[in-house]
């Protein structure tokens, strides 16, 4: 009992040391990464509301995707219905 208890304590101390070592290495790696590659706010998208044409373009794309998805679900041709009303923020 005595020896196995000591063994368990040994293993535990060692393991905690390894865990902290590994995770500390990981922390520094992540901090390095985050510093190297900082977050960049995406360029402000041109206000979509105003530029009707581009918004329309995008809306068409979205509508196409949704149409396809719904068509899949309905097992019908995408030609048979039309999506309206996705407003762009």
């Amino acid at each position, binding site marked *: *009992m005595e020896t*196995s208890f000591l063994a*368990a304590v040994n293993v*535990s101390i060692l*393991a905690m040391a390894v*865990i902290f070592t590994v995770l500390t290495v990981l922390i520094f790696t*992540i901090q390095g990464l985050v510093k190297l*590659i900082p977050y960049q706010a995406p360029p402000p998208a041109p206000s979509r509301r105003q530029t009707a044409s581009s918004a329309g373009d995008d809306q068409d794309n979205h509508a196409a995707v949704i149409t396809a998805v719904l068509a899949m679900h309905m097992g019908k041709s995408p030609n048979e219905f039309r999506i309206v009303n996705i407003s762009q923020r």
Partner: protein
Amino acid sequence: MEFSFGASASKILTTTGFSSLESGHIIMILVSCVLVYLAIWKKFEPLLLLPMGFGCLLANIPMSMMAYTDSGGLLNFFYQGITHEILPPLIFLGVGALTDFGPLLANPTTLLLGAAAQVGVYVTLIGAVLLGFNMHEASAIGIIGGADGPTSIFIASKLAPHLLAPIAVAAYSYMSLVPLIQPPIMKLLTTEKERKIKMAQLKPISQTVKILFPVVVTIVCCLMLPGVTPLLGMLMLGNLFRESGVTARLHETAETHLINIVTILLALAVGSSMTASSFLRLETLKIIALGLLAFCIATIGGMVFGKIMCKMTGGRVNPLIGSAGVSAVPMAARVSQKVGADADPSNFLLMHAMGPNVAGVIGSAVAAGVFISLFGDTVPEPHAAIADAIGTIEPGAKAAIAQVVEAIQQNH
């Protein structure tokens, strides 16, 4: 074969489950019903405990051939997925696909909280040794404190397969009990003032970093602790599917139907290992007691380190997020949020607690890696090659083959 009425009737009677029903079966069927009850009406990790309890029910119907040791039985086949360590990594693939490591990346020092919570693993290990378990068994029991089901199952199947059933049950049960276990400990260890600390908003993280993170974790952690590669590697691959933005199909499958299918197989297999002979033992009670200890100490470990971080940052870290380091995602983080909001309703700790919460998953995977390094057979035994290859073989047959090989060697 005779088919007289009498002979047939007696055949049917002798092959009913009643003919070989023992008290052990009845008790285990009751246990299975308790698990199903807890899963459905108490919502204890139902995705796992419901099929696990049902698997236990099936395994304990006498002569149903559904126990994990019934070679050729249905659940024995599923159990191969645990024996060969295939199912837990696939679960982790889905977990990775479901996990957002953003909060951890925004505050990487919370990884230390995930490390500190592992103290529960080791105190439990020492406790288990004191209660008479050997080192392998104690390790498998200790990992309950990691509060991660697949990790517990992975380690148990590797180091102490005969204890798989109670370890899995304890792990998932206590994960469900986190909202009951943690708050008293958290309140005991913190002052009202500490609980009211509001943390600064997390800074946004570049998508590139989110993509690089799983690759970096794999290289760093798996190089240091190769034994954990199946678990941690798959976790990180799932996360890469999620963050890369180019594998939406694989991401969706990994986080939905693939993890669901694997969960069904895994939980049934674990349930099938809950036989009377493996579960109705004093060891099970010890494991259940040790499991509770593990969760408590893990919570304390996280809290104490949380308080240290609070001090070192001049009070900018709310120590309540420390308890989330036990993992049990996302319950433990919600507990942090709730206890914080109890002290000050305008305190939103959830996102801050998600950092240590997912760190806890990595932390216990690393702890598992240490155990595999120390006790796992990374180099397979030379002569077991044949037995390994034909994995489904039962002990008797293994002995027979060994005998054959030996006999040949003597004849030479």
